[in-house]
């Protein structure tokens, strides 16, 4: 939802609640909170028009820390709860903060169904590849082999890749960011806020206690340029400390090439976030470290009517055709008879 309400401009601080924040020192959630407040201020939606909805998890504590309306629901059901809110109140800006367990384990089904209906909700998935609140069991995004409280010999479940799942359900807005790259995170969050329809954002989030360093490769000073690739619409896929590496298509498969000799920028795969078919976005979602740099930014951003708009069309259409419903007509519809 995007309302640049002409009103006394709010500052990020205005979006802070009175509750003191209770995440562990070093938790990536702090940075996401800070950037979200900044974006809310930028987008300029009045505080009372915003609702944050969550399930259960460290990430799901989020609504307590923003001064908007908030609903801390049950585990995994944030998206269906948010859908109920949006469908009955399309005037509200609805945000969901959720975890990799909350959204992809117990809540996986609600996620793909909200996405396919394209309900206008901004979904921030805090992916720390672990169950934080319950103290360190593996999650659907934990890498195979990882030893956790519930997998002393290592994870044997093949992980789900959040963006691939979202694209499998044909999401209209799909993006990725990482907690510590705050500028880019804020940029992506603002793009999500301005998209009409379900905006799905995966945020790499460091769990300092149970999965410290899980994203070291993507955030480390001297590794990040080679392990991540920042997408730009209509630009070729270039990355690397020296910006001399790129992604080229070999048939249907991406390959890493070095920009030298006969390999020019024009030979590279160009990003097009508006491509109607999600196949490119899907292919990008398949690029994983270490084989590939992991794309960051907006993978896909296309228009499709939202569920609630289509519903309101039917409702308003019905009112136009049949007129505001009147109870007397309702009661007397069908065969009636009178007893004197």
């Amino acid at each position, binding site marked *: 939802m995007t309302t640049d309400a002409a009103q006394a401009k709010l500052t990020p601080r205005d979006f802070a609640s009175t509750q003191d924040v209770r995440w562990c020192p070093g938790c990536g959630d702090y940075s996401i909170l800070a950037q979200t407040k900044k974006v809310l201020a930028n987008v300029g939606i009045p505080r009372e028009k915003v609702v944050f909805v969550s399930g259960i998890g460290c990430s799901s504590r989020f609504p307590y820390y923003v001064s908007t309306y908030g609903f801390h629901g049950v585990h995994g059901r944030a998206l269906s709860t948010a859908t*109920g809110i949006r469908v009955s109140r399309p005037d509200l800006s609805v945000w969901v903060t959720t975890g990799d367990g909350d959204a992809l384990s117990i809540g996986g089904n609600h996620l793909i169904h909200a996405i396919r209906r394209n309900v206008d909700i901004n979904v921030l998935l805090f992916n720390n590849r672990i169950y934080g609140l319950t103290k360190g069991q593996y999650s659907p995004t934990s890498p195979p082999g990882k030893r956790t409280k519930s997998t002393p010999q290592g994870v044997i479940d093949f992980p789900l890749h959040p963006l691939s799942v979202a694209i499998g359900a044909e999401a209209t807005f799909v993006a990725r960011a990482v907690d510590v790259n705050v500028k880019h995170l804020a940029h992506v969050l603002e793009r999500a806020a301005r998209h009409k329809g379900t905006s799905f954002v995966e945020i790499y989030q460091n769990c300092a206690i149970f999965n410290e360093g899980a994203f070291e490769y993507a955030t480390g000073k001297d590794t990040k340029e080679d392990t991540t690739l920042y997408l730009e619409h209509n630009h070729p896929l270039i990355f690397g400390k020296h910006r001399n590496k790129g992604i080229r298509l070999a048939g249907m498969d991406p390959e890493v090439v070095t920009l030298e000799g006969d390999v020019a920028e024009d030979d590279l795969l160009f990003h097009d976030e508006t491509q109607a078919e999600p196949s490119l976005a899907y292919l990008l979602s398949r690029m994983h470290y270490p084989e590939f740099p992991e794309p960051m930014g907006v993978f896909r951003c296309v228009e499709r009517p939202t569920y609630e708009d289509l519903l309101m069309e039917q409702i308003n259409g019905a009112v136009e055709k049949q007129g505001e419903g009147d109870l007397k007509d309702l009661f007397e519809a069908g065969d009636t*008879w009178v007893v004197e």
Partner: protein
Amino acid sequence: MVVSTQPDQSGKGAQQVIEVEEIAVRFCGDSGDGMQLAGTQMTNTSAVFGNDVSTFPDYPSEIRAPLGTLAGVSGFQLNFGSHRLRTPGDQVNALIAMNPAALRANVADLEHGGVLIVNSDAFTQTNLDKAGYTENPLDGDGLNAFKLYKVPVDTLNAEACAGSGLSGRAVARCKNFFALGLSYWLYGRPMDPTLNWIEGKFGTKPAVADTNAKALKAGYYYGETAEIFTHRYVVAPAKIAPGKYRKVSGNEATALGLIAAARLAKKTLFYGTYPITPASDILHDLSRHKNYDVRTFQAEDEIAAMTSVVGAAFAGAFAATGTSGPGLALKSEAIGLAVMTELPMVIVNVQRGGPSTGMPTKTEQSDLLQSLCGRHGEAPLCILAAATPADCFAMSIEAFRIAVEFMTPVILLTDGYLANGAEPWRIPDVASLPKFDIKHPTTGDDFKPYLRNEKLARQWVLPGTKGLEHRVGGLEKRDVTGEVCYEPENHHRMVELRQQKIAGIADTLPPLEVLGDESGKLLVVGWGSTYGAITTAVERCRKKGLPVSSVHLRYIDPLQKELGGILERYEQVLVPEMNRGQLVSVLRNHFLRDVTGFYKVQGKPFLIKEIEAKIEEMLNGKES
């Protein structure tokens, strides 16, 4: 039951006319034979004629079982009378069977000496085989117990409709009207209502309209002219409160009630649900009323449905869901969230045969305890139960009345019998319906989300209200402020407060009325859909002078305040239930009162006579 008999005046037929107080007719045939339509037509005609009516359809549990098989038989039972009717009738007085399978599946319910009309054309070898008859029941004397009339319906119908220009199959499809016409003659029903309906329905296809009308008349005049019928029956109009009426099933009435409540409160009705038999028709009905700002949401499952309803309630809509047992089980956790967040919503549970998938198309009353206790922690809420199909309307409105007045989820229990059964509904004057005036707070000066009013209800804030921004959720709340709080004493107090709030609803309930004497030997206590059978049985017993009274519960939690005192005034208490004693355990627990449970868990409602017999048995001291 016979009132008087005299020779027929009307037609030339020499039949005797017998006047009776009520008649139960059942049409049965293949799913394709249009039996539901025939039954509905005769119901409407009888209602317009001035009789009281009560009906129950009996669909096959398979979608479309093979033609002519037992699994494919569809039936429709109509009870019409010259006095108040509360059930479709214990026993069938007249059975119209369109094929051998239909006969086989239904003949057991036909009363001894009852009228049995069969479509003799359909008794071919193949059909007999499909029905599993080794020999033709129409030959031999297996059916001697009944007034058997073999009518070659196919042939007669075809002859009557000859030259209609319609295909043979199209003509054959009219045979239900032939059968209907025949029953109209047999029970002295006017043909006009149905003729008008045909006109209205097929007006655009004159040939079809014409042929159906021909078939109807052909059936009627066949009865008059064919010499085979020895009797006719007439049922005088009933004394019914004047007013405008329509027929409603329980599910229709529930949908009407939900819409009415929302409209009366000038609210959006949000209905989040997942289809499940026998609740789905509520969704179907509601989805057809979008111009009443009804927003139906078919969710991916019951958990999504329930949480979407919680979200909608938080957002300020009149939020409701409908489901049946298995769905209610899945909603348990989310209902607990609704209890903790103290938001208003209505959960309609159309009970069916359990446990597990059980007998999905059959009726039962076995979700009472799940409704009461099927949540973790101490999670009290309000539970209502509708007594008749039309009562579903009143109770749906009442459910929303309580939900918003006390800021609580309310479970409304109905069941498959109410959902599909139908009765006349006296259309209420809109002005006479309950008023809803809902006040959402609008000013922010130190607003406290969990501050309670004298009814212990917290305020219902609309998101979007400036200055009232706040957060709620499933964690324990600090009294008044609603912040997350783990303090021992606070938790203890909040658990008590939530219980007291629900208990307090009792102060707003209508008094519980006794049918019969205010005290005595035996009290029958019922709840929900057993109302019709129990009340009729008690009335009949009282006519016989038996010292029996009854109360019927439409409020399960909290119970009406009078109940405890009433129970004490009777020597014995009988509690018939379509379960294994769920209300019995509630009564024992509340009142430490020994009561006699009477259980029928067969997927079918009680028959009046079953309860009558039980009452007599208890009064004859066989029990207790």
